[in-house]
């Protein structure tokens, strides 16, 4: 069976085949969910925001001219919508570059390892979720969405250098969490 490209699906939806939009939803829901979750930290709220994002994207499909990839365009909607929701609720979450050190001192009390996920990647997913918002978002976009640093710049509207710095700091933080807390022996 032929797998339709994003552009083909969008063209079909624009022609009035609304049900084809489900293909796009299925394609991006999980990855976008990880991105929203990295910002809002709540499953229920993340799903609600994600639905709004898909709805916004649907209503703006006519404006999408295909100048950039659909994924970049869509993740920008997701990122901005999540940020707006967070700022609207005036959540007291850490979202700055200086706050990463606070998260390095995660201890066994955080229950990171006390679950059944004894693979490094699965545990990393849990730990990534505990990183400060921006770092978690960069990791999600880079490793899950497989975006380049240039694409991440466009989504997050920050400089290329900032993206690279955040990526490196996030990896360093993860190394310290995993190896300095001796999770590595259990994981590797």
């Amino acid at each position: 069976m032929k797998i339709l490209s994003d552009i083909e699906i969008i063209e079909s939806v624009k022609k009035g085949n609304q049900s084809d939009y489900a293909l796009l939803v299925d394609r991006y829901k999980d990855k976008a969910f990880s991105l929203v979750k990295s910002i809002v930290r709540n499953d229920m709220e993340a799903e609600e925001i994600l639905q709004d994002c898909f709805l916004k994207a649907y209503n703006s499909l006519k404006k999408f001219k295909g100048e950039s990839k659909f994924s970049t365009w869509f993740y920008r909607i997701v990122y901005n919508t999540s940020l707006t929701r967070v700022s609207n609720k005036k959540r007291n979450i850490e979202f700055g570059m200086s706050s990463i050190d606070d998260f390095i001192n995660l201890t066994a009390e955080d229950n990171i390892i006390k679950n059944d996920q004894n693979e490094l990647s699965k545990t990393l997913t849990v730990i990534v979720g505990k990183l400060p918002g921006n770092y978690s978002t960069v990791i999600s976009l880079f490793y899950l969405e497989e975006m380049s640093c240039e694409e991440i710049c466009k989504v997050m509207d920050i400089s290329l250098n900032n993206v690279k710095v955040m990526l490196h700091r996030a990896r360093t933080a993860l190394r310290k969490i995993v190896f300095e807390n001796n999770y590595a022996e259990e994981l590797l």
Partner: protein
Amino acid sequence: MKYLTDEMLNKYIDNELSAEENEIIIKILKNSTVDKTKFTELKKINEGLKKITPLKTSLNFTSDFMKRLRLITIRNKKQKRFIIFISSILVVPIIALSGIALYEVIKKSIVSAKEIPIIKDFSFNTSFITKGFENVFTPDKISFLGISLSLVIFILLFFLIEEIRKTKHRLSKIR
């Protein structure tokens, strides 16, 4: 002893260094066990991150969303139709009132124009219009006009109610 920074090692992993810098890093890694350990750890983290899987949305996410999308589309269509109906109901009496007003204006202008010889010709030219208006707005026919307008409004209302009924039916099917 000065060790390599995580930043340098990260850049080395990401191939962001020049060939010369790469060579220096390789040499340091061969001689320093601390740096080599740090490098191995960072590399393992990088490899682990490449394998992380996205979080899963609930099983019914797509179907729930598509249901919501259909509902919203139907609601939007319903709203549009409602606005069209309401505006058409309003437009018809407005047109009728404008017609009456126009008729009154023309009637008065003709009366005054009869006193000015030049405009008398104009009144002659437009007489067929005024006569038409006079025919329509005579006391007998104005009631006929009212009945016609009421009929139009009733027909429009019928379609409006019918549309609401159909929309309700469609919504109940989706639920």
